[in-house]
């Protein structure tokens, strides 16, 4: 229900170990659990080391049996599948309604959701409805014997904030890739899966299906070397500089961060990151890219990373092999010059 005042007051957080649970909201693609679901299990395990609690999973969809069974077998968690014919496509409204119905009965101290475009859509609203704390973009957890804190990036990844939830229940959205997926626990005897049938419909939203719009750019996947332009290139004209740098490398291609594609300096299919391509070339040269999580998830698997930024504290430097704190408009010409000189010189 809509309410302007949080209904639960600040709590001293004395957890009832017997009753409370960590509840994972599984994410599925075409009826199969996505890898992020198992990453949530890893975080659940870490929380359990501080507060031993049972772990439960909820699977929502129009066809949930297979995924529920798979999660139960892989993790030993007790699984509740909610099957609803109107969930052929994700619906934020229906997710919030159905979860709000089933969660209170499960006594969740923590509700774990993946920080995907789906999780981000329903988690904050669900937290409001449950009167819960809400922390997004979680990529770490710490326990000092008293407090369980969750860390998240701020300021384009330059700073990490540690956040203490104050309510009895907390909804967390968890950064994909931040926790390694738990190795399926083959020894655990799975608890029986419970499937509930629901025919509830959403009142104010109608899902109309999925549209495929961007063609993938094969050149990004095939390239050995990617030279990527970020907002730091400053203008469309400087794309030429990035292209020049790329021609120094065989089997190379030019890529970009989201703002560069948003401004139309590069085509959308050149975008690397959460909502673009995931790449892992032998060499990734990040030019004028700050290294926000949404970009990093797309390129952090690259073999060797060189980063050029004017900001000595740019987050991209934390995941780079070589860091160059320079203005790219002067550095790249210097580097090209140096390559040419060396090529001409005695071998």
């Amino acid at each position: 229900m809509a309410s302007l005042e949080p209904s639960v007051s600040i709590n001293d957080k004395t957890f009832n170990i017997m009753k409370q649970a960590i509840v994972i909201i599984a994410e599925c693609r075409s009826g199969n659990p996505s890898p992020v679901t198992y990453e949530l299990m890893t975080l659940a395990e870490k929380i359990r080391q501080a507060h031993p609690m049972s772990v439960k999973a909820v699977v929502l969809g129009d066809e949930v049996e297979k995924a529920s069974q798979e999660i139960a077998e892989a993790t030993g968690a007790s699984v509740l599948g909610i099957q609803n014919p109107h969930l052929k496509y994700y619906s934020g409204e229906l997710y919030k309604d159905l979860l709000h119905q089933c969660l209170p009965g499960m006594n969740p101290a923590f509700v774990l959701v993946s920080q995907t475009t789906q999780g981000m859509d329903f988690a904050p609203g669900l937290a409001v409805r449950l009167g819960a704390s809400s922390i997004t973009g979680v990529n770490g957890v710490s326990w000092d014997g008293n407090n369980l804190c969750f860390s998240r990036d701020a300021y384009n990844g330059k700073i990490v904030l540690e956040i203490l939830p104050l309510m009895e229940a907390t909804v967390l959205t968890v950064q994909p890739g931040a926790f390694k997926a738990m190795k399926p626990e083959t020894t655990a005897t799975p608890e029986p899966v419970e499937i509930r049938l629901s025919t509830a419909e959403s009142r104010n939203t109608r899902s109309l299906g999925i549209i495929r719009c961007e063609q993938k750019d094969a050149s990004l996947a095939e390239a050995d070397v990617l030279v990527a332009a970020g907002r730091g290139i400053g203008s469309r004209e400087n794309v030429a500089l990035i292209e020049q740098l790329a021609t120094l490398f065989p089997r190379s291609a030019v890529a970009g961060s989201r703002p560069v594609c948003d401004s139309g300096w590069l085509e959308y299919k050149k975008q690397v990151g959460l909502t673009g391509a995931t790449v892992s070339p032998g060499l990734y040269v990040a030019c004028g890219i700050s290294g926000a999580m949404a970009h990093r998830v797309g390129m952090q698997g690259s073999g060797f990373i060189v980063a050029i930024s004017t900001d000595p504290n740019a987050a991209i430097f934390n995941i780079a092999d070589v860091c160059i704190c320079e203005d790219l408009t002067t550095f790249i010409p210097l580097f090209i010059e140096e390559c040419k000189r060396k090529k001409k010189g005695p071998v």
Partner: protein
Amino acid sequence: MKILVCIKQVPDPEMPVRVDEQGRVVRPEGDLKYWMNRADEFAVEEAILIKEAGFGTTVDGLTVGPEHAAQVLERAMGMGADNGVHILLQEEDFLSPLNTASYIAAYALNKGYDLILTGVMGEDHMQGQVGAMLAELLGFPCATSVIFERIRDERGAVYVEREIEGGLRAALELDLPAVLTVQTGINKPRYPTLSNLLRAKKQKALVVESHILGAAKDREKVVRACYPGKSRAGLMLEGCGKDKAVRLLEILEKEALLFCGQQRE
């Protein structure tokens, strides 16, 4: 149609930000520059585009922030918003997304807004929560990461496409009133015009003291800030630009990552 656009003022991300010994986020003394959160520029532009398409639309820009936040309302009006609403905070403090959303909801309640637009995420704290929470507080349907929208006036609804992973979009229709969080790239935000800016200066935003609206209790607390760890060597090259160029070339050759001899033309 009545549209409300929520606009956050954020510190210029290029300004240094540090952590002190107490684990607090600190900004160096001196001139802190602020600007409109970039995702919100797209939200304002989208509202103006709807206004230009007709529907007898008025656009209100709203910000929750201290005195200096008024600047983003001027910019929004410079872009073509009709009115500015400033929910004035007395202090610079970090505001939780629920607090922000509660202030906006308390103001917007019963004002007859058909559509509320927010940005997908604030650049400073990167929470991506205010829009979705606001929808919940008002009991409106909500779509996040919106990359396309069309008003279906005759049906009292809005058609939207949400950007999801893997180059896909989810299409849906929401009954109005609704909240949309706007993804960057949905349009090309315009620059404010001089005539609009002059009007904005004269017109002044409506100021509402935040305490009149009543704050929500905090549900989480930032206990400390720190620097992120490194996942790779992060060798910082030293010297002048030329030294670094020479050194980078050496490293790439050693790693067999650069083949100057086979350079393409």
